[in-house]
């Protein structure tokens, strides 16, 4: 009898960490490093984070000096998203906890809906942040991120992408609600294993303090109807794109249908897992699903990458008559997609940031908080869209090079369109809760569907 082996077998009942958990631990340890190289550039900023608005900054942004001064800072609660253990019931609770935490951020106050989570802090308000990045230009922010990205590990049996997305939606009551969706994508490297997409409707809530007031006046309903409206050309394109991509991934029955008059609830829905026939694809670039091998073969020289992307963007959208946007805007969005949502090598992420840094029109927004209240630095690209000006923003954690979130912020609203979010607000956001390689397996909720089952 080998009692050592028995001990090992008995204690071997603990799950491996998720990519998110490893990333949080890594930030905790390495985020404490003394500055060197590009760190010099952000040292003052980290200290400002640690001593100033530390309410939700946590150890991820606190410098080592500050952590040691504070003594307990090292054990300060981390962002609730990191505390989450993969159970799905926990997601809603975690999101609620985030809302509470964020409500305490100075300047980020909000009503019971906790909707300040959907907006950057004061520093992130359009136009006023650039000077506050302690002189960091857009390219400096991106180059620091590029350097950090080059250090990230890249191994594991599965690629995990965990996002939280939402945005402002007008209700028939005349006020806006923020409807949030939690999505986990698990793509295995083993061909025999299925790809899973676990989706959880986290429900909706009034979007801003003004909306909270209007909502209360309307009797505080927990169920909303979203009026049908004519989609903007941009939205039509995105909708067509989603359906098209989904058809490619699931030829036997689309998971996404064109929108009908929709009902949203405060409670949201139960999570479910969708098994996908992804045929080895790990994500989408320029309207086309790509395999891991294709992603791995992308050029790691910024200029070559840009040339390739421009070709793919032209080819990918040709049928739709183009996206109607500037090439810069398309490159920004596709670059964000590559750097944030795809399993790419550190070299490719780094090249992507370098490419973004060279795009005309990209500006430094400065220090902001993402919708989960995590502090980061944003670069943005304002673009005209009809009569409005929107800005895509990429929020980065400069200590790790990780993407925190992608947002579309309204800089100037459509003059006469009550359907659009107002200036200074985040119209759409997609938070990267975690992205990385892991040996952990998805914890599948009870409800599971295959590619043959359509979701209404």
């Amino acid at each position, binding site marked *: *009898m080998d009692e050592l*082996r*028995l*001990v090992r077998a008995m204690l071997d*009942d603990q799950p491996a*960490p998720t990519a998110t958990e*490893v990333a949080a631990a890594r930030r905790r340890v390495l985020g404490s490093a003394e500055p*060197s190289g590009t760190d010099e550039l952000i040292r003052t900023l980290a200290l400002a984070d640690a001593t100033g608005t530390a309410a939700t900054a946590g150890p991820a942004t606190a410098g080592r000096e500050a952590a040691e001064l504070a003594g307990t800072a090292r054990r300060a609660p981390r962002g609730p998203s990191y505390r989450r253990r993969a159970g799905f019931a926990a997601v809603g609770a975690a999101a609620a906890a985030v809302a509470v935490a964020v409500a305490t951020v100075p300047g980020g106050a909000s009503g019971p809906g906790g909707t300040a989570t959907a907006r950057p802090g004061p520093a992130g308000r359009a136009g006023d942040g650039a000077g506050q990045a302690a002189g960091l230009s857009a390219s400096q922010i991106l180059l620091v991120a590029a350097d950090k990205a080059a250090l990230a590990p890249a191994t594991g049996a599965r690629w995990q992408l965990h996002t939280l997305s939402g945005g402002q939606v007008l209700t028939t009551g005349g006020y806006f609600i923020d409807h949030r969706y939690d999505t986990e994508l698990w793509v295995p490297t083993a061909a025999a294993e299925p790809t899973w997409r676990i989706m959880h409707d986290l429900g909706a809530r009034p979007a801003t303090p003004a909306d909270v007031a209007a909502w209360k006046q309307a009797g505080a309903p927990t169920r909303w109807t979203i009026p049908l409206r004519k989609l903007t050309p941009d939205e039509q394109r995105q909708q067509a794109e989603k359906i098209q991509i989904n058809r490619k991934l699931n030829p036997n029955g689309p998971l996404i249908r064109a929108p009908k008059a929709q009902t949203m609830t405060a409670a949201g829905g139960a999570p479910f897992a969708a098994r996908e026939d992804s045929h080895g694809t790990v994500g989408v670039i320029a309207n086309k699903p790509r395999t891991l091998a294709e992603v791995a073969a992308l050029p790691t020289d910024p200029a070559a990458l840009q040339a390739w992307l421009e070709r793919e963007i032209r080819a990918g959208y040709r049928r739709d008559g183009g996206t109607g946007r500037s090439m810069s805007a398309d490159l920004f969005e596709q670059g964000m997609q590559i750097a944030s949502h795809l399993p790419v090598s550190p070299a490719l992420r780094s090249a992507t940031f370098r490419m973004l840094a060279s795009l005309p029109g990209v500006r430094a927004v400065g220090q902001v908080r993402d919708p989960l209240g995590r502090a980061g630095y944003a670069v943005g690209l304002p673009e005209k869209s009809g009569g409005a000006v929107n800005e895509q923003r990429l929020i980065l954690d400069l200590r790790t090079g990780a993407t925190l979130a992608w947002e579309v912020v309204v800089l100037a609203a459509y003059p006469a369109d009550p359907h659009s979010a107002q200036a200074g607000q985040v119209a759409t956001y997609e938070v990267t809760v975690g992205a990385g390689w892991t*040996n952990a397996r998805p914890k599948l909720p009870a409800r599971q569907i295959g590619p043959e089952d359509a979701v209404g």
Partner: protein
Amino acid sequence: MTAPPEARPAAHPDGRTDADHTAEDAATMRASTSDPDRFAAIFDRYYPQIRGYVARRLTAEVADDVTADAFLAAFRKRGSYDPGQGNVRSWLYGFATREVGAHRRAELRRYRALARLDAQPSRPAPDGAAEPMAAAELDARLASALAGLSTADRDVLLLVALAELSYAEVGQALSIPDGTVASRLNRARRQLRAALGATEDN
């Protein structure tokens, strides 16, 4: 309890073994004293296995926190790492074991939970398990025996059983002589066997 077992971190993803890394690690550690970012390579190489060791002793629930603490402690002491006293891997297991020691009550709670028969998942008896004894009862006895070991003996036993360190590496991790490692391990194994009802020479 229902989680799938994790692949054992016997070799690194690059296909090389820990031994291959020894010289490289030592150079990285030296460089990290002036360039702290270099410590990232040490973290990436060893976090998964150290975290696995901590999770098995304390549960996955707290493993990331405790392992990050261990790496932080190691990071702060990186200047005092001496390659002459052993490899980086066993040096890190030393920090991890000390951090686990700070959570002794959590560890004992885990063993006591495993020692409750009704808490045992029903799984087939492992190969070579004493035949008439059910796997659940075997685990229950093993867990309560683990809880009954002295901390010093348990550290040695689990560094061998879970981390698969050699006697010399365990000695380096815990800063004790090889002979002490051997005697503690023997004593711990004797206690486990007694709890399982096996004879000395099985």
